[in-house]
């Protein structure tokens, strides 16, 4: 594990064309890292994420992605992800290939990836059109009962990027609260970058806590507020109002591009991004 700046970590470990999973389910979404991918103008990424959320709307709208593996692509509690829709409906700013799953299927794919098995099994995709739309949803026969179950190929991102509450100096990362499939996405990855609220001498004692061990972590970046406008349990709340505002920002290409220019491209880092919103709010 290496402690480094976010820009160095993204530059060193995320190549154009890589498969990248920024996980976190509503909670602990690595917005700061996503913005840095945009600042560094990464291209042709295969983005992986159960719930694309605003950060993938931004990445897609800025033309960083060639492919999206996902299971639910909306603005939670608000409505559409307009940039995702524009990409799928009008190929703007470029064509986006979809690898579409259900949550249960995608979770099984992450678990298989974390266990380094080639496929995951579930009793799912029953009597619907999802396996017609996605040739990577197949069937496997139980060698004991003969039942045919759904099989999904393992997800093993080149890079998984997470945000977490804390890391210690050795690079062990602790997270708590809603974890989604973050742990599986981390264990499934070739490289793992984690932004954290704070780096501490010793993680809080939690015998059965959720920890990503230092030798699985490629880089740790101290990045307070790194999940904003998502949230970090124990540090700050989700900015639901921002999620609602995003609907208007992202609805039109021009307002979206202008917002990205001001708040992401023209800010040097996440602290500057937060400051740019603060000025706006004031």
């Amino acid at each position: 594990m290496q402690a480094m700046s976010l820009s160095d970590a993204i530059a060193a470990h995320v190549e154009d064309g890589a498969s990248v999973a920024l996980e976190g389910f509503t909670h602990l979404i690595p917005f700061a890292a996503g913005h840095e991918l945009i600042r560094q103008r990464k291209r042709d990424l295969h983005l992986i994420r159960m719930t694309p959320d605003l950060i993938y709307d931004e990445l897609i709208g800025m033309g960083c992605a060639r492919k999206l593996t996902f299971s639910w692509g909306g603005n939670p509690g608000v409505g559409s992800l307009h940039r995702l829709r524009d990409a799928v409906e009008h190929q703007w700013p470029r064509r986006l290939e979809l690898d579409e799953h259900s949550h249960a299927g995608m979770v099984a794919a992450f678990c298989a990836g974390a266990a380094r098995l080639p496929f995951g099994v579930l009793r799912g995709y029953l009597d619907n059109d999802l396996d017609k739309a996605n040739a990577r949803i197949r069937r496997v026969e139980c060698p004991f009962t003969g039942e045919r179950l759904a099989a999904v190929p393992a997800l093993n991102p080149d890079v998984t990027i997470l945000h977490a509450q804390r890391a210690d100096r050795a690079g062990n990362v602790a997270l708590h609260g809603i974890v989604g499939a973050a742990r599986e996405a981390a264990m499934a990855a070739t490289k793992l970058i984690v932004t954290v609220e704070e780096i501490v001498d010793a993680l809080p004692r939690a015998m059965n806590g959720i920890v990503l061990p230092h030798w699985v972590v490629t880089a740790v970046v101290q990045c307070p507020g790194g999940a904003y406008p998502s949230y970090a349990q124990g540090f700050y709340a989700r900015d639901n109002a921002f999620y609602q505002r995003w609907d208007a920002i992202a609805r039109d290409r021009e307002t979206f591009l202008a917002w990205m220019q001001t708040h992401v491209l023209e800010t040097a880092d996440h602290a500057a991004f937060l400051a740019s919103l603060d000025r706006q709010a004031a």
Partner: protein
Amino acid sequence: MTDATRDEWMTVAAARMLRDRCVCFVGIGLPSAACNLARLTHAPDIVLIYESGTIGTKPDVLPLSIGDGELAETAAFVVPMPDVFAYYLQAGRVDVGFLGAAQIDRFGNLNSTVIGDYEAPSTRLPGAGGAPEIAAHARETFVMLKATPRSFVGQLDFRTTAGFGRGHGDRARSAAHGGGPRAVITDFGLLAPHATTDELQLTALFEGATIDEARKAVGWPLGIADEVTQVPAPTAHELDTLRALHARTRQAHAQPVVLPTP
């Protein structure tokens, strides 16, 4: 005559269908309001599971997203998402699932994927999320969806989630272990599957709604149950509780979030 809105009628009607102590897989929006209304009225020991992994959660205000911090803070415990889908849902540990969709057909099959062709859709919808497997594994499901001929359709553009398939026992022959949709709660009243054909038919109306209104809102020739009942109006206690919940929610969500300071 009650002053309840149609949203309130829907929410109250859905809440009443939930038995105390039942284990309920909750979706955002009207289902979340309905489940919490049940918890705050007749079902104090209902177990609410949100797919984010919060088990036995008792939010004081309604979450905007399915993973708000409020849900984790008030949960009995929080599990990783693989556990939710494998050990709870697929394992048959969930009694009731709530579903929404953009389109529903006469057999309770749902579309939340695309309007138009999958490869070149006119409208790209959010997609499946948890719905296909909630529908497959929960002992029973409720669908909450406002009715228009564009949402209650003769033919789905895409079948994201199976209800009763092509009806007539189709579902019972599939690998789905759950019982399928028990009711559709919509803005004129309730639909329920016919005992043998599985086709949704009108079983109950809200105050002020008519069979004719229902027929106009539905894009297939709507079957009418032998007996169409009147849904009892929301009680003062139900309405007060629901409105207080929404008021608390509005107040909480209006609180400005302090930007995290680096």
